[in-house]
């Protein structure tokens, strides 16, 4: 019987320091056994449990698209026991990955629609996976207009600077980058994400909205999204909760009758309003 | 001597006069020899309160949570005024909590009550073999019980008393705003008080280890002992810390032993031998095996009484020139 508690061994191929505070790192992980990569097949929005033997596991959103074959990307903030160990790890070390887990972004439902992607801070990780997927040459024509609004505290805190530049250079998508406070070299927007979204005012006709960010950003962005005319069923978010098993058994991520690991982490605003006010 | 009516009257009075918002005492449960901790807000509910030899729980354990600012609460907050029925050991726990800055004295109205000891439900159930305790009456110094297999037994109340109650040194509240009843004078000498410790120490080392293992291996890490204890108020218990990880969360014997040994040592100089941990344990583990040993050592090495007055310094919180230093010079 398949054992969903056994991690796939993966090698840390590259570690990229994402921010000035050096507490956000992106890890490029390569499957030790190529057969594992064949069955992994994730969809943007899903997460995996990163396993560090001796320390434990952490549920982390997958930042790479399945179209970016050969490796998986995870952007991880240094927080506790497991992530501490990861941040101290060197390239070449073998750790583990369990997954893919959870419900993905509704990429099928997005077909033929315009997609507006709004992200803030380091919650942008799975949105990167989504954008890379939607804009991949094999997929691009399936989707309408793609608009991205992404903000961070300062230019140094922006993730995936190379990808941001690449997206901005494309003419088949619009990318708006903002920072709370710019520096002397900054030429982009300056302001909080909700304000910039209000300014950009993407149309909600035939469009789906995907939103990921820290709670405070979500709180102030939701009214803007409502104002723009996006229905709760068309507003898609990704939740975080304390998790352990990742497969809907241990009960830790249970909210109401839902399990964030299994019924989420992607939820529409409509689904979320059905959940008890507990998070 | 039942002070039940006095308890009800006093609680009703305090609530009616708005001296307290809440009164904590005991109520009947549906099960024999078991009471529930109970909180009332209105004098109309005062007749729900009871006082009998099954009022085992140490109510002081509920105080820190009741009297602390709710998480995320913004603005002006005052702790509720709480009345609490305090038998001797409960009042000592209250002293301990006040001195440890865990609860504010002025939020409390302590109704001290003279206690003649509590029945050990574990002991009574033990006398019934595998049958279930179905009915019990306590009257005239006797405990009469009926078991599910039809057996009827009667015990002297003295026989059925919890072991810690038998050697209790403070039957009346050591701190109170109101006092109910007169406590019988306790004449417990040191020999009697720590008899269980002495008897255990006389066993051979291997036998002691085996006995310890037998008791502790039943533990299911439910932490009822810890939560029932007023002294265990730490926001993060050593048993659950991950950085560093002192012990694991499993029921591996080493994890069990370290949890109980650790908790016993953390009680040193603070345990008032209220027996709440033993009564709370769903597996009837004799936790006093450890706690009384620690209590005995503290008493022997440093003397003094634990948590008997707000003014008197605690045995482990004062340094005297004559304190025993043998642990350093002659650990043996």
């Amino acid at each position, binding site marked *: *019987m*398949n*054992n969903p508690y*056994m991690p796939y*061994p993966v090698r840390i191929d590259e570690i990229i320091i994402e921010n000035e505070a050096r507490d956000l790192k992106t890890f490029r992980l390569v499957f030790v056994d190529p057969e594992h990569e064949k069955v992994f097949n994730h969809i943007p929005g899903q997460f995996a449990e990163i*396993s560090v*033997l001796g320390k434990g*596991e952490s549920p982390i959103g997958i930042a790479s698209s399945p179209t970016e074959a050969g490796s998986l990307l995870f952007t991880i903030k240094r*927080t506790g026991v497991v992530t501490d160990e990861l941040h101290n790890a060197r390239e070449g070390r073998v*750790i*583990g990955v369990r997954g893919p887990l959870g419900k993905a972004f509704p990429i099928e439902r997005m077909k033929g629609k315009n997609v507006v992607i709004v992200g803030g801070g380091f919650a942008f990780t799975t949105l990167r996976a989504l954008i890379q997927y939607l804009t991949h040459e094999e997929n691009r024509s399936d989707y309408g207009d793609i608009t991205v609004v992404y903000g961070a505290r300062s230019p140094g805190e922006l993730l995936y600077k190379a990808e941001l530049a690449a997206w901005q250079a494309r003419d088949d998508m619009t990318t708006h980058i903002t920072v709370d406070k710019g520096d002397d070299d900054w030429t982009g927007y300056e302001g909080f994400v909700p304000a910039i979204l209000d300014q950009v005012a993407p149309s909600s006709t035939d469009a789906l909205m995907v939103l990921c960010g820290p709670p405070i950003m979500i709180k102030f962005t939701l009214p803007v999204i409502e104002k723009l005319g996006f229905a709760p069923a068309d507003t898609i978010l990704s939740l975080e*909760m*304390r998790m*352990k*098993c990742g497969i*809907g*058994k*241990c*009960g*830790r991520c*249970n909210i*109401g*009758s839902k399990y964030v690991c*299994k019924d989420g982490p992607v939820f529409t605003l409509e689904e979320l309003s059905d959940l*008890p*006010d*507990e*998070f | 001597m039942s002070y039940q009516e006095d308890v009800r009257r006093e609680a009703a009075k305090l609530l009616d006069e708005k001296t307290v918002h809440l009164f*904590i005492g005991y109520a009947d449960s549906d*099960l024999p020899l078991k009471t*529930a*901790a*109970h*909180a009332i807000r209105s004098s109309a509910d005062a007749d729900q309160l009871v006082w009998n030899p099954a009022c085992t729980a140490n109510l002081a354990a509920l105080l820190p*949570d009741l009297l602390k600012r*709710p*998480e*995320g609460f913004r603005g002006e907050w005052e702790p509720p005024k709480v009345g609490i029925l305090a038998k001797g050991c409960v009042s000592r726990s209250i002293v301990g909590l006040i001195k440890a800055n865990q609860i504010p004295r002025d939020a409390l109205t302590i109704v001290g009550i003279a206690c003649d000891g509590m029945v050990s439900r574990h002991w009574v*159930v033990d006398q019934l*073999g*595998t*049958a*279930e305790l179905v009915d019990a009456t306590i009257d005239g110094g006797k405990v009469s019980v009926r078991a*599910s*297999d039809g057996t009827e037994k009667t015990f002297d109340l003295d026989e059925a008393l919890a072991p810690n109650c038998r050697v209790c040194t403070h039957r009346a509240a050591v701190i109170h705003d109101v006092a109910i009843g007169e406590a019988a004078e306790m004449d417990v000498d040191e020999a009697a008080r720590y008899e269980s410790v002495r008897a255990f120490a006389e066993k051979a080392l291997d036998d002691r280890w085996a006995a310890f293992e037998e008791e502790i291996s*039943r533990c*299911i*890490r439910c*932490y*009822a002992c810890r*939560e029932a204890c007023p002294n265990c108020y730490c926001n993060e218990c050593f048993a*659950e810390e991950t950085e560093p990880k002192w012990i*694991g*969360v*499993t*029921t*591996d014997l080493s994890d069990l032993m370290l949890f109980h040994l650790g908790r016993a040592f953390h009680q040193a100089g603070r345990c008032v031998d209220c027996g*709440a941990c033993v009564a709370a344990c*769903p*597996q009837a583990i004799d936790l006093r095996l450890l706690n009384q040993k620690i209590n005995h050592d503290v008493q022997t090495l440093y003397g003094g009484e634990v948590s008997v007055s707000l003014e008197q310094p605690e045995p482990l919180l004062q340094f005297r020139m004559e304190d025993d230093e043998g642990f350093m010079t002659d650990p043996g």
Partner: protein
Amino acid sequence: MTVLKASKSDLRKLLGAIAGEKRLIAPIADRTAVRFAEIADSAEICLEYRNPRMSARSALFPQSEVLLTFDGETATDARPEYRETVLFGVRPCDARAFTMLDRVFRWEGTDDPYYVGRREAATVVSLACNESGAACFCTSVGGAPHDETGSDVLAIDLGDDVLLRPVSERGETLLATFAPGMTEASEADLDRAAKFAEAAKAGQPDVAIPTDLEGLKKLFDSEVWEEFAMTCLGCGACTYSCPTCHCFDITDEEKRGVGYRVRSWDTCAFPLFTLHGSGHNPRPAKNARVRQRVLHKFLYCPENFEQVFCVGCGRCVTNCPTGIDIRKILGRVSQLVASG
């Protein structure tokens, strides 16, 4: 399927024969209580008890279980060959609970191989209740003292004799293998058993179970949870004695690079259960945790599995150190739901 009859001594012989070939887990009278243990000698088996203090759930879902072992960077699946096991003496409430654990551990196509491995290797010979316990209320939650749900064989104690009613094919096979040629129960025997079942049912109170799920949802923000939480110690006594509780924690134990990943029972009653790495806790106060315990069993599981996750064994009532009584909580909650 034919109901068989055996004398008590023949029953012990039967169990002895089973212990010789399979792993037999049955109740024994420990110094302090009746508990389930692995049996070598069937003479050890206790047949006179209302219900073992701890539920039978640890036979299929042990309190601590090693998931994998590791050495450096290599992890190895720690699943053993699950031995064929017969669980004897499980009361119908605990047996029924197994069917609920089955739903969780096999949910949405993801099988928990540790639980499923043990489950598939287990044959449940439950022992019907001829009388109800002091805190029992199985009849209020869809169970019954002679209920067969979750059992492979239902044993019924008639005093000198025991009836053995096969419930499943697995149960029939067990009896055919180990008790060939056992006598058939007579009509009179079956009649006596039925009378015991009725008497046991009659001994139970009627506990009001809130079945209006929408109404129950509306109680989420009610102050009643605060009321219940006031005397809750926040320990795990209720959840750990519960036959249907299944939450667990996964931790790693390691020394110099060698160790294991183990899962252990956990409880929503502990604040640590939902504490995020960031420090945020969605259920910071006891009222939220008491609410979670009750709603998980009586609202969320019915929503997910069309099944209340309580079998009315009453262990939480008996074991709660501060005398909190789920029956009273349910009564009050039902009242509130009914009054809108």
